[in-house]
């Protein structure tokens, strides 16, 4: 085997600790101060990236690409941290990373970018991504990319991939009730949408960062403008429903009293 070409699709999302407030813009719904919000690499995509790097490390001759659609300036900021994690080559697309964009348009842009990677060899191609984004959270983009690339094998909610000598692999996908669907696939090409996988976040490695940044800056410079918008979605309202509860704070009760109250509540 000559190793895999592992293409990871992943973009930026607002830091989960930020408070989000919807606003209406000429392009459709958006977030208040969206350009100012601190961003992180979409968490499930990040897991996919770490799994990709781990697989590439185990399979000689493999290479990892990160295809990322987002505002160029914010992608540059994001790469200052992400690029220190694992080795990859960035393919940047300059466009909106909003959660309100239509997955169909985003998938078309990602598939076109993947297909345009120089020297792409489908017989060695594994496309990774998150099982859903923390922004749109639709869980459909990777399947649409899969179809657009003409790939027949797709796996969702992946937590494990085990490669065999002959290029085939076994996959565990999350299904209902805390169970896994176990499958085997004859080999690449395939698309895998990852859940959390089993790897911790790699520590920052300045040497990896320096090596990556040599390719990151040129990629950002030539990032293709990509008009990802709301597509055919007609939004009527976006809102944060009131969720404030009147919390009763119990701080002077004995352990016995608290336990009794909890048990009564459970049993009612």
């Amino acid at each position, binding site marked *: 085997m000559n190793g895999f070409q592992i293409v990871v699709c992943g973009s930026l999302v607002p830091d989960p600790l930020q408070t*989000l407030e919807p606003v209406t813009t000429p392009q459709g719904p958006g977030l208040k101060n969206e350009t100012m919000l601190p961003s992180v690499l979409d*968490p499930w995509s990040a897991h996919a990236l770490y799994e990709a790097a781990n697989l590439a490390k185990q399979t000689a001759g493999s290479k990892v690409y990160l295809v990322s659609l987002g505002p160029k300036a914010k992608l540059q900021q994001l790469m200052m941290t992400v690029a220190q994690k694992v080795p990859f080559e960035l393919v940047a697309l300059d466009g909106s990373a909003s959660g309100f964009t239509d997955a169909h348009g985003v998938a078309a842009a990602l598939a076109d970018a993947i297909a345009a990677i120089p020297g792409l060899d489908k017989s060695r191609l594994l496309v990774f991504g998150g099982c859903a984004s923390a922004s749109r*959270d639709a869980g459909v983009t990777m399947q649409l990319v899969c*179809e657009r690339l003409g790939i027949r094998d797709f796996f969702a909610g992946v937590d494990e991939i085990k490669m065999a000598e002959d290029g085939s692999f076994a996959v565990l996908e999350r299904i209902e009730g805390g169970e896994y669907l176990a*499958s085997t696939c004859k080999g690449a090409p395939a698309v895998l949408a990852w859940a959390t996988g089993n790897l*911790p976040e790699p520590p920052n490695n300045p040497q990896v960062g320096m090596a990556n940044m040599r390719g990151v800056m040129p990629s950002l410079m030539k990032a293709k403008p990509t008009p990802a918008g709301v597509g055919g979605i007609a939004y009527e309202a976006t809102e944060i429903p009131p969720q404030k509860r009147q919390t009763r704070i119990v*701080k002077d009760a004995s352990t016995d009293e608290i336990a009794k109250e909890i048990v009564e509540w459970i049993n009612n």
Partner: protein
Amino acid sequence: MSKTLALLHTQADGSLPKAALETLTAAASLGQPFDVAILGAGASAAADAVQGCGAAAFHTVDDPAVAQPRYATDAAAATALIQASGAELVLAPGTSRFARSLPGAAHRVGAQIDTHIVALNAEGGAVRAQRWFYRQRILGAFSRAARPWLLLLDTGVFAPWQGAAGAANAQAVAVAFTDDDRRTAVTGVQKPAADAQTIRPDAKLLFVAGAGWTKKQKDGQFHIGEAGALILDFLGKAQASLGSSKSLVDIQGEGQETLTFMSHMNQVGQTGSTPRHPKGIATCCHGEEPHAVGWRFINERRAVNLDPNCGWAQGKADVLYVADAFEVMAKVNALL
């Protein structure tokens, strides 16, 4: 009104999952004629089981190729069923099987698709849907003019359909599966051991454990073994489902000693699940994600932790008990 199809699948035993019955209720709620299409083992018998749902026609694919959930064959079968029905609006349950395969089917029939639908209504011939964005933080209402339009419904939103069985006279739809559709082979389902099964979607109570269980306690010592025993004892007695904060499962990934029965599968919140349970209790948990995101669909919420000013419990929980969770849960277990 668009021609509507309720697209369902069977389970391994040939029955329809609860989520499929919920989809029938949703289809009927639109107040317009609809067809039912079912794929999977025993699809014809499953159609008979829901014959009384009011569908105008039934279509099925029960080829051995769709006996197991597999992307390529499921997408091909769903494509054939949608095309056979001529449906412009397709409602389907948001099960793992359909969440995996229906986006592919949507592409093949030139349809738009939206998922995680939590509300649906049709007024004046227009269909409107609601779903959450940014992981249950922003609720959006929207519609699409393009057809066909596939909508995957979140489970627990509609009541399961109940009604009489009968002869559905389902029309079998032929699908030309290719060898390429069978490159993937399902080898089975991996279930946790019965005593290790801590995720129970139908449980009345969600118990969320935070990282505090693995921190030094007031005697300056770790009590991780005791924490594990207390939690497992409670789960067994209350038949609760176990959730975890991200920080707790991350500890395990970082190689530190933690609760051995806890995995990323238990995680609720931003990169975890958003389960639906009538009640939930969080312990030793201070993060935003369990309270704001993971608890979005928990009706009654209580929390036990040592910080009366916990910003994420206050305003998110109905009751906050300021107490030592080790002591409280030991007493709770004794009473249960």
